[in-house]
């Protein structure tokens, strides 16, 4: 049974273009759902509609079976973490965390106990008297989380909560955030444009593009089988080629012929995703006369050592393809290579 139901929500700011176009979503109790997408895809607008900070033109948001239309944000009992943290600069850490409890008329003793508990949870015991300006970015982030959780909201929304932090800190905190949310069993909607962050935090992902949801699923499933070329590209897959599917399930492209593990259902124009993992790699003597299926022959254009693997850019058939190969890669720029790809690394998107 879904706790939060989003039904056919539409919102447009500029007539003719919808920021959110007919989105429907279900979130189960205790689930962390990530809205993932590039900036401008409508994920923040959707979040703000759920929060009540924006109103939908059409559609409904229901929480625990109750329609939220007309319920102002302060009466929803939701919590929110903002990208800029939105900590009150004129209040100290304690008063920030206590704010939501005060709004709920909690007693002084209750407030003191709950704030202490929250600060302990985010590892900031003893920080109550500090001013916000004295805190580092990471500390501010944790105060914001404690503040949002303190009143015990029924749903927590996080709008790019790590976006203002540097990369190293982000890597560490995304794990912490998930741990804390799971510990208190919070139902959460988490907005981010960073796939690493989404993978680390989410139980389920909803990848958004141009106001619509392109794919919903658990992170490994989405990464394994991006549902659309957009999702593939957004997750960092670069090798997307136009091709034509024949009757027997084979696909002709500018760099060769391929036969994916799950062939297209009918002939016609397709887009082929070649995942970067190379099954086999060898030097090619010269221009190959007979090109085998599922192999690519091309010239090394550039290579970059990335630690446990190497990135190789291969020019083939007028295309530029990216592969990840073992770090023992020792070819030179200009060398000709032949790369074999296993059929399960090939995904086909049928047009339309």
């Amino acid at each position, binding site marked *: 049974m879904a706790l939060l139901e989003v039904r056919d929500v539409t919102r447009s*700011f500029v007539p003719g273009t919808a920021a959110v176009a007919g989105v429907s979503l279900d979130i189960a109790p205790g689930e962390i759902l990530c809205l993932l997408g590039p900036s401008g895809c409508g994920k923040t607008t959707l979040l703000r509609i759920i*929060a009540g*900070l924006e109103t939908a033109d059409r559609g409904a948001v229901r929480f625990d079976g109750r329609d939220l239309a007309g319920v*102002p*944000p*302060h*009466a929803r*009992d*939701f*919590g*929110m973490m*903002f*990208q*800029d943290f*939105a*900590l*009150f*600069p*004129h209040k100290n850490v304690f008063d920030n965390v206590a*704010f*939501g409890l005060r*709004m*709920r008329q909690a007693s002084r003793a209750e407030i003191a106990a709950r704030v202490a508990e929250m600060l302990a949870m985010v590892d900031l015991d003893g920080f109550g008297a500090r001013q916000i*300006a004295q805190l580092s970015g990471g500390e501010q982030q944790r105060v914001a989380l404690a*503040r*949002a959780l303190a*009143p015990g909201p029924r749903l927590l*929304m996080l709008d790019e909560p790590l976006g203002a932090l540097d990369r190293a800190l982000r890597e560490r905190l995304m794990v912490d955030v998930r741990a804390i949310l799971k510990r208190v069993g919070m139902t959460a909607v988490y907005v981010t444009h960073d796939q690493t962050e989404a993978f680390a935090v989410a139980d389920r992902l909803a990848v958004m593009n141009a106001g619509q949801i392109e794919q919903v699923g658990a992170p490994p499933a989405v990464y394994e089988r991006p549902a659309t070329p957009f999702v593939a590209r957004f997750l960092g897959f670069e090798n997307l080629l136009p091709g034509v599917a024949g009757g027997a399930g084979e696909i002709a492209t500018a760099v060769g012929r391929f036969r994916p593990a799950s062939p297209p259902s009918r002939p016609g124009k397709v887009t082929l995703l070649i995942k970067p993992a190379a099954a086999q790699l060898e030097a090619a003597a010269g221009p190959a006369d007979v090109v085998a299926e599922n192999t690519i022959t091309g010239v090394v254009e550039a290579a970059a050592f990335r630690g446990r693997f190497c990135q190789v850019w291969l020019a083939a058939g007028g295309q530029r393809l990216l592969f990840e190969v073992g770090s023992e890669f020792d070819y030179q720029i200009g060398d000709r290579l032949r790369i074999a790809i296993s059929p399960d690394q090939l995904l086909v998107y049928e047009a339309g």
Partner: protein
Amino acid sequence: MPDSSRRARTVRRLLTGGLLLLPLLFFALFYFYPLGAILRLGLWPEGRLDTAALGQMFTSRTILGVLWFTLWQAVVSTLLTLALAMPGAYVLARYRFRGQSLIRAVATLPFVLPTVVVAAAFVALVGPSGVVNNWLMDALSLDAPPIRLSQTVWIILLAHVFYNYSVALRLLSAYWQNLPPSLTQAAQMLGASPGRAFVEVTLPLLRPAILAAAALVFTFTFTSFGVIVVLGGPRFATLEVEIYRQAVNLFNLPVAAALSLWQILFTFILMLFYTRTQARISRPLRLGARRAIERPVRTGREKLLVYGNAAAILVLIGAPLLALVGRSLRGASGPTLAYYRALFTNRDDSLFFVPPAEAIGNSVAIALAAMLLAVTLGVLSAQLLTHWERPGGATGRGALLARLLDPLLMLPLATSAVTLGLGYLIALGRPPLNLRASILMLPIAHAVVAAPFVLRSVLPGFRGILPSLREAAAMLGADGPRVWREVDWPLIRRPLLVGALFAFTISLGEFGATIFLVRPETPTLPIAIYRFLGQPGALNYGQALAMSVLLLLVCVVAFLAIEHFRIGGEEF
């Protein structure tokens, strides 16, 4: 190095050094010396310390009454202004709507209008034969004007609100814009109703800006002169007006000087308070991009709020100005240009009559001279400041000097024009520096008043000339003059123009100091307006309005140019 070239370099250094010290000399002579003269006359009238005149402040019933009026009208004006400006500031800071830049511009306009023009505009709007009264008399067939605001405290308060609304609006909305909307939203998400969120979050965060605006508006209204003299009539006097009366009508210079000393003390304390709150304003709040924060107007309530405020701004600012223009074009029997034509005809039915056309000529000549002086001073001061500020360009002592010099050069801003006028009257009317009859007296006084504005305008430009820019130009093969032409000049051109326009309009409208120093036979435009407003007769009235309209037009054009050319300049 040959001796001759070393000597040449020393000479050049001395010359540029001397040139740069010129503004200091000027301010010493034409600001500190006159103020010192007031101090001497107020404290040492007979060559020994005598605080009797100072004590009059608290013994004379009249002066106590003046102080009381000065105080309460300033308090009421400030409260009214802030109450009106708060919603306007919110609308400008948070919403994006069509006509917004127009509203912004209109709301800023009063800042550059001369007091006399503002006063004349209110006379034209709600005076005995003003637009409103004429309408009401026509519509209700009355014999006497039904609204009698003229020479009441109400018209004074109204004019004060008109004048200071823009200052408060600008300060508040600029600060409000920098408050991230996420703060109030966070409060709401934590369970605060919109009203509660305003009280708990917005209001405390706006406090520095509210305090700064209040301090500034209070200072302006506390030292109000032109508005009171023209609109209040003889019944009302602020401290400023009393200083003027003591000095010019009663010729009681020691008392005037003593009152001036109090006035200087008060304004000094107020400015101190203002600069301290100003400093707090620049407390680091993350600046949000304006486009991201401003949102379009959508719901009916938002529309009411936004367009209601826009209409209020347009009416508040527009009505008096339109009334001024309209009334100046309307005679007893319909539309007429008679008042404008009369400006250029000679009537000599009065002993001190000076044709208005001549006053216009005087004003323009004085304003040009003052502009030239103020720009020279401003540029030299800015040069001096940036030279001393520059790390490496000067020692730590230089940076210290710059820190001292900057507020010092801003002091004239905190000095009332009347005080300055009185100081000139006392100090520069007799040897060793007798400028009484000099045509330079007014341009100098105006330049002192305007120089801080020029400095504020050009300083960002000068600070923008980073040494690395000039070095880069030099490395790319530009010689000295070429560097100046390619790097320095383009960077300071626009700020310089803005500063010059400021100086020109300030001089053109200057009233408080001018009324002390002007010679009866060579009045400036504001003085002529003041005189004509004080004379009976429809023609005198009409001519005063016509002259005000001309002054208004020049100021509006200058204002538009300033707004066009300023590049995110500093606020005052």
